[in-house]
Each structure stands twice: as C-alpha cells, then as structure tokens.
C-alpha cells in the first residue's frame, strides 16, 4: 500500500510499481512520450500557433467544466490537485503541459491529447499559471 503515491516525475516510478498490469501497459509508452515532450517543449513553444479566440473560449469552458470534475469548478482541487495560480507557483510550465497532454501514469490524470492539440495544452497551462479565466457568461 505504499507504492501508489503520486511521484514528482513518472521517471522515478519503477515499472513494477505502476498500478496494474494494464496500467503498466498504459504507462510505459506514455512515459517515453512524456519525457520526449518534456525535452522538446522548447521547440513546441516556438512553433505552436496559439488557439483562436473561439477555441480559447471552448478551452476555458472545458477546463472549468470537464477538468473541474476532478479539480473543481473553481480549480481548488478535488480528487485532482488544486490548479490555482498559487498552487502552481513552484511548478515548471513544461511538465504542466506534458501532464495535460500525456496524462500522469499511476494517477487518475488522463492524457487529453485526443481532445487537445499541444498548442491547446500549452495555452491552458499558461492560463493556469496566470490565474485561469472565468467562463463566458453567455451560453454556448
């Protein structure tokens, strides 16, 4: 029961300690991508076009509502950790982007790459570090 705590980096997780057989299968390929992305985010920053204004609105709603399932509508945390500006103050931006895009093996944090581009993930991470905007009051 002592091997399930979220570690600072998945690279510190021995494969045997990953949470289940499927989890190991899920975690290992992602680990490689996670590290590759971590190493390559400098390039990502340079080449990504930021999301359009409309996409940004969609992303704000998605983060508030769907990420809010675990992190809270106000991003003050739940099963997932708090994502307020204060809570993220000492976290590196790159690992945040990687976590959003590739998930975090061994924790409930899923990879969102099926629904987000890397540029989307970067934009979301930057907004989180700056204090995430409120949803538009108007209806979609």
């Amino acid at each position: 029961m002592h091997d399930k705590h979220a570690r600072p980096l998945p690279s510190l997780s021995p494969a045997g300690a990953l949470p289940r057989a499927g989890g190991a299968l899920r975690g290992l390929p992602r680990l490689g991508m996670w590290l590759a992305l971590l190493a390559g985010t400098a390039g990502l920053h340079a080449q990504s076009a930021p999301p359009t204004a409309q996409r940004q609105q969609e992303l704000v709603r998605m983060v508030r509502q769907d990420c809010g399932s675990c992190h809270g509508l106000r991003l003050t945390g739940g099963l997932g950790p708090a994502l307020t500006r204060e809570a993220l103050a000492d976290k590196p931006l790159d690992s945040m982007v990687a976590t959003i895009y590739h998930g975090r093996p061994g924790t409930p944090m899923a990879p969102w790459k099926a629904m987000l581009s890397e540029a989307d993930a970067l934009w979301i991470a930057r907004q989180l570090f700056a204090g995430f905007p409120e949803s538009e009051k108007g209806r979609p």
Partner: protein
Amino acid sequence: MKRRHCLSLLGASSLLLGGCASLAGSPGAPAALPLRGTGDLGVVVARATGTLAIVNTSERAVLAQVTGLGDLSHASVVFSRDGRHAYVFGRDGAITKVDLLTQRIEARVMQAGNSIGGAISADGTMVVAQNYTPGGIKVFDAATLALLADIPAEYEPGKLSRVVGLVDLPGRRFAYSLFDANAIWITDLSNPARPVTTRLPDIGKQPYDALVTPNGRHYIAGLFGEDGLAMVDLWEDKPSVRRILAGYGRGQEPLPVYKMPHLRGWAVAGRRAYLPAIGRHEVLVVDTDTWQEVGRIPVAGQPVFVMARPDGRQVWVNFAVPDYHRVQVIDTTTQQIVRTLEPGKAVLHMEFTPRGESVWISSRDDHRVSVIDTQTFATQATLAIDSPSGIFFTSRAARLGF
C-alpha cells in the same frame, strides 16, 4: 411580480432565472405556499451558479430556486427521512440544509476545505460528510448541523487520506474508502461521542468510489489502480475484504478515463449487479450470489453512472467526455442495449422517479433537464435550468446507500 407568474416564465427564458432566484431566496417571499407532501419533490443542482432548483416530479416543474449554496461542483444531496429537508454537500466544504417546503436555507455550516459528499443515518439523526481536505469524515446533528464527531482518515502518523465512497449502514454505522491509503474503514457511531472504527487495510489500489447493496450486506469499492473491485461482506462477524472481478481488463491497454465513474446508487437488478469498468467501454455484470463475472456489455464510452430503474428491468448508463451526449439503456432480461438516446449536450446525471416510470436527465451544456418515459423513451417535458448537474429525488430518503 407574482410568484406563479415568475415560475411559468422559467421554461421560456433563462434570463429570468436570476430574478426568480432572488425572489425565492429572499426572506418572506414565499408567503402563500400551497400545502403539499414531499414524496414527489426533488432538487436539481445548478452547479455553476451555486443554485438549487426545487422540482416537482408530478407537475414536472421547477417550484423554486434557492441561491447562495457556494461551490456546487460535484455537489451531492441526501434527504431527511420525512423527505422535507435536503442536505447539500458542496465542493467548498459546506453542508447546506434546505427546507423543500418553505424553499429556504434552514442551516449551513462550512465544515471542511474540500468535500466530496455525504450520507445520512437510517434513523435520520446524523449526517456525515466525506472530505478530501482535511481527509476524513465529520458527523453532524441532522437537526442543527452541530458537529458531533470528527474522524480524521489518518492512516500513517500525520498523513490524512482523501475519503471516497461513504455509505450509511444499518446500526448507525458508516463505511468509506481511503483513496490514498488503499483501505476501507467502518465507523460505528452508536455513540457519536465515542466512535469505534474498524480498519481494513490493503484492499487494492486507489479506491475511487463505492456502493452498498440494497440489503446493506455488501460494500463494494471500485479500484482505479487495478482491474477489479474490493468487496466486504458486512454480515460477517469479522468483516474482511475479497477481490471481485479481478483482472477484468485482461491486461489490455486501458482507454483514457476522462471522468471517474460513480458507484453510489447501486445498480442491482435481480441477482445481478451492473458495474462500470475503468478504462474500458464496458459495463460489467456480476452475479451477486457467487460474485463471479457473468457478462460484460459493450457501451458507447467510459461509463460514469450505471443505474438500475427501481424495478430492475432496465439499467441506464451515461458516459464521460467526449461521449457524454449519449445515454444507453440495457434490458436486464437480455443484457442487450435496447436504446441509445441523445438527450442533450454533456449529460451529467440521471434520476428515476420513485417507481421508475420516468427518468430525469441533466444536460449541462444545453442548460436543460429532460424528463423521459422509460417505457416509450418519449420526452415528456424539458425544464430550463442553468448548467444542471446532479438530480436527487426525495425517494432516496427511504433507500439504503443513496
């Protein structure tokens, strides 16, 4: 403006919601409320606005909106045994006691930094909150919301676990699971001043939610960290944990889980229980006598709620993003999906009327609750409610584990 007039406009325009909310929430506003019972009442959480809509399932209408409930993301509700009061557990750690008849907040307490839900004792005297921060449960007098007991989920010195899967059990006991400690605890509150807690360690990795079967005998915790569920037979003299449905993923790569399934509100139909798989687009079917898997039903996405109609003939399933525009219906006599509905965008919750002739479904992004006939699948009514999430009817008051 007359109250009645205001309510009749609710369905027509969302712009009036704010006005009606302040009317219903202001002191003295509901001056001449009709005499009524509570058996056909319920509440719908409008989570983005911190509002609770009081609804009537016979009229299929919103009766009032109660404002000022704080952060209602992941809010859940239990009812007093007379069905008059709703206890709303908010994310921000608040418990709000709402009187469905006077349509007002009767008591409110901030009891934690981050909360996930609660339960009420069978005798109706105690409400219990399960908290993430600080991890543990807290027990309150159901009449006054005065604190009766505080039980930190301290599994190692100085370490508190987030608590999930709290259920009420017969005999003033409550069972709950410790996400961070891989444990199930059972606390006897016969004397709230001296709680007695039985701790079951090593139940499996990362329990994320749990249920108790309708007879109060079996407590089942879903595990996020491994394929399988942990089950306790509470009728044993010394309850122990056994694994059920071990390895249901069969080593295959799991699909992303964009939202945790909810187990509360058992789906037990006949002698079968229907459970959401984690990381697989399947509903698992287990025999409740042998606890062996007897089938699995492919569904349209990661199941979130798997709920039996009260008579057990159907099981309704909704899904995590991005498949949450669908709802599927399983016929429990054939184990086949007999209907796929698309009631709206971002379906978050479903609630059956007491005898199950209708189901109410919340569509968050369409700001709509749909009332659907469970025989014909026809939409019987729609109600305009801002970003609706959880729907809770007073019939829960009479059901163990709801």
